Structure formats: C-alpha cells, structure tokens
C-alpha cells in the first residue's frame, strides 16, 4: 500500500491554517468575551476599498412590557428594497455577554420588522446591546446600547375601589400586579360639571385621597402607572385603568330630562303644527272646493228654489253639470212566454222576434246650439 510521502503530508497539514487566515478579512481586535462571529461583523470594509454609500438602517426601538417580554421593532417599510434584516443582541460586561441572534422574529408583510424576547432573556440592570444588520451587506449594521430599566411599560392598574373616609372625603385605591413599590401613579378625576381632568402624581402607595367632594356631583376617576423612580427611570406610562364613578348619577339623568323637556318637545310640537299647516295648504290647492251647505229653508225663502245660487256652485259649474243630450223614456217590457204575449210588437212575425230583454235605443243626440 502506497503511503503519501511524509513531507507532502506535512505540507498539506500546514496549508490548512493558511487557508483559514486567507478567509478572515482583517486582524480581529480582542473584545473580551464576545464571540468571534460577532467580531467578524464588527469590522468595517478593508482599507483601500472604495466606500459605497449604503442606505441607513431603520432605528430599533425596544420596550419591556411589565418585565414579562420585550419587543424590539423597526420600520421595515422604510427600506428602499424589502430586506429581511437580522437582529443580534448581548449584554455588555456581563455573564450574559454571548452574542445571540433573535430567536423569535416579528414580521410585517413577510419582512422581519422586530424581535420578541421572553422573560428569561431580559436582564434589566445589565447594559443591553442590540445590533441590526443587513445579511446581504454585513458592513451595513447599526448598534445601540440601552438601559432596559428605563424602557419598562407596566400593566395598567386594576381593581379601582372607592370608599368614604368621611362625609366629604373620598379615598381611591387600586392594585398593580408584580411591580408594586417600583411604580408611581398618575390619578385623573373630573366631575360631571368639569370640562377637563384634574390630575395628581402619586408615589408608590396605591391610594389617593380627595379631601372634599360635592355630593351633588358625579365623579369619574382613572389611574395609570410608570416604572419610576426607585427601580428605573422610565418615562413611559401604562394604559389608563378602567374608569370608576362615584356620586349622584341622577344628576346626569336630570340634565337629560331637562334637555328633553325644554328643547325637544317644543321643537317637535312646532314641527308637527307646521307640517299640518303645510298639508292643509297643499290640500287646498289640489282638491276642488266643496260647496258650503247652508240652511235648507233658505233655498225656498231666499233663493226661491235657485239651487245653484243657494249651494254656491258657480253658474259655469252648474251648466257643465247639465247633460248635453235628451233622453226619452223607454218602455222596456218583457216578452211573455208562449201562449199569450201581451207585449207583441207591430211586426208580429216570428222572424222579427228579438231577445226578450232587447230594447231599441231610446236616446237621440241633441243638436248643439
């Protein structure tokens, strides 16, 4: 069996590391515990190469939601060409300084637009470093350092409760899961007579006292929270809590009833009257005038039987109602059955017999004068 000569084998061996050197683009600067893969992306284009202007990457924004999960997002539609950008992250000067790629990308129109990080990947008090990168142009990248404790958005306060401390003093209290002493609160309230909210900043104690309330008014309260200042310096408020009401709720109803009575009913009535008047006028125009019926005695005593004058019907109308033809009375008789026909006509022949109910025309047209 032939064996390769020893010098050739050693030469082959020596070539392997040389191949590796040829692949790395530049001298890597030591950077602590960062992975070599990250170091590759850290280097810029080799010196001497022409710099080609590349479009800037969108800015990454990260928010920590109630310290349960974190979303780092960017505007993927701002890119001139749709590109699936990749996200890497690590924690600086920390036990969690290993560079990791996002394990759960968020998509918008099938393009990566964010990264979701679970609770176990969030270390609030370590410096969070995030890098957005174009996989097709590794030199196109943007790195950002963040203090996660300043990017917390807590959950909205819950279970708002009101109680009377005294006749005019009211206490509002609420609860916030998980973060309690780390939060400060903003309380807003307004009465049904106010046009804007009154607000009060409250420290970590989840209660607020309104020293003087008007029993005739209806008050509405709502609260939101912020992760500040003890455990972080976030300026991001949570959503508002569900509002809670206190007071004389009927005052609202009274106002509504008053509006109904004072405004809607008179307006409605006026509208009805006006519409009836309009209908009457329309009927007057379109329908002929019905003659007024006066006292029947006046027909005889005053008008001497002149019906048209008595009824008020105009002469023209009276003439138009007269018939323009004369009509003779026709005697219509029934031909008796066989055995005696009292009504036999002058013809008297069987051939001239007609239908029992036939009658000759009995009218003639009156010549027009």
């Amino acid at each position: 069996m032939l064996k390769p000569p020893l010098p050739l084998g050693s030469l082959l061996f020596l070539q392997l590391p040389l191949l590796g050197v040829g692949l790395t683009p530049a001298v890597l600067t030591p950077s602590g515990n960062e992975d070599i893969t990250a170091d590759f992306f850290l280097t810029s284009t080799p010196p001497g190469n022409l710099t080609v202007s590349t479009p800037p990457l969108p800015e990454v924004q990260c928010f920590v939601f109630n310290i349960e999960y974190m979303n780092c997002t960017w505007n993927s539609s701002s890119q001139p060409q749709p590109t699936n950008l990749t996200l890497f992250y690590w924690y600086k000067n920390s036990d969690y300084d290993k560079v990791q790629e996002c394990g759960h990308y968020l998509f918008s129109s099938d393009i990566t637009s964010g990264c979701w990080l679970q609770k176990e990947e969030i270390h609030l008090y370590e410096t969070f470093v995030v890098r957005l990168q174009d996989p097709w142009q590794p030199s196109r990248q943007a790195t950002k350092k963040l203090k996660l404790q300043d990017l917390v958005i807590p959950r909205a306060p819950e279970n708002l409760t009101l109680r009377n401390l005294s006749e005019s003093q009211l206490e509002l209290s609420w609860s916030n899961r998980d973060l309690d002493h780390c939060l400060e609160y903003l309380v807003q309230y307004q009465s049904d007579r106010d046009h804007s909210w009154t607000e009060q900043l409250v420290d970590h104690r989840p209660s607020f006292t309104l020293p003087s309330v008007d029993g005739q008014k209806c008050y509405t309260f709502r609260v939101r929270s912020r992760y500040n200042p003890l455990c972080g310096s976030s300026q991001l408020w949570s959503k508002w809590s569900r509002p809670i009401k206190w007071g004389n709720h009927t005052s609202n109803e009274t106002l509504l009833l008053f509006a109904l009575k004072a405004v809607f009913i008179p307006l409605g009535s006026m509208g009805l009257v006006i519409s009836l008047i309009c209908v009457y006028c329309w009927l007057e125009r379109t329908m002929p005038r019905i003659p007024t019926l006066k006292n029947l005695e006046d027909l005889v005593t005053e008008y001497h039987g002149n019906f048209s004058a008595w009824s008020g019907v105009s002469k023209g109308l009276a003439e138009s109602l007269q018939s323009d033809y004369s009509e003779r009375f026709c005697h219509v008789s029934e031909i008796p059955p066989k055995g005696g026909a009292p009504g036999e006509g002058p013809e008297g022949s069987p051939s001239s017999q007609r239908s029992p109910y036939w009658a000759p025309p009995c009218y003639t047209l009156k010549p027009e004068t």
Partner: protein
Amino acid sequence: MTTPASADHVPWYIFGIPPLILVLLPVASPDCEIEGKNGEEYRHVLTVSFEILAPIGENDSNCLNNEHNFFKKHSCDDDKEATFLKTAARKLKHFLNTNIHEELKHHLSIVSQGTLKLLNCTRKEAKKSLKEQRKQDDMCFLRMLLQQIKTCWNKILRGTKEH
C-alpha cells in the same frame, strides 16, 4: 507497650489557624450593610442629584461607546452590589478636586457621601494617590460612573435577583 497517639503530639500548624481566620474574616465577610432599602432617601435625595448631574457628558456623542477598564473590573453583580457601590462612590469623590462647576461638585458630593452613608460600611480604605486622581478628569467616564451607580441602586431597590 506502645504509647497511644496522644494529645501530646499536636500538629503545630493548628495554632496558626485561628489567627489566620481572624485575619481573613474582614476580607471574606461584607463590611457594608445597605440601609435605605425602602427607597425614601434615594427618592428624595439621590434622585434629585442624579437629575441635575444627568447633562454631564451629554454632548459627547461617542461617550457610551468608550470602554473603561473600571467597568470591566467592577460591576453590580448579584450579591456584590454593596461592594460595587462603595468602590464607585469612592471613585466619584475624586472628581470633587477637578475643575467642574461648584453646583455639580455639590451634587457629586451628595451622591458620593449619600451612597456611602446608606451603605453603612464599617471598614475605611486608604486614600488614593494623586496620580490616579488625574486620570479621572474624564467627563465621559464620570457620566458612565453616575449611570452605573444609579443602575445599581435601581437594582437594589427592586429587591429581586437577576435570573
């Protein structure tokens, strides 16, 4: 008849162990007892000074990218928060002898002294040399130092351990 292995033959090094323990005990045991964990002093005193000192180094856009060896050696790790704060607060004191505005010096003093007071440390350390002090004339380093002190306080006041 054999003589029993007896108390007469006690190894000599046993007597060195108690003194050794006494010497090593201050090093091994923490010498600071953090007070003010309810956050009242932090909220009403330190927070105010932090806000006033926040603009330091703001104009230096490359500030946060600078690497300082101090933070590679000292960090607010779990169970080492007091140690870090003590070291950082002492480092902060060096800037009191630099050419910065008197008002800023006043608030630096509040943060430094206030932190050390709340730490309630029993052991005092020797003063640093002037040579090292000159190296601290770095506003960027001061900015990062203040941020790290604030972050460490936030971590202590939150009261839970990082996972």
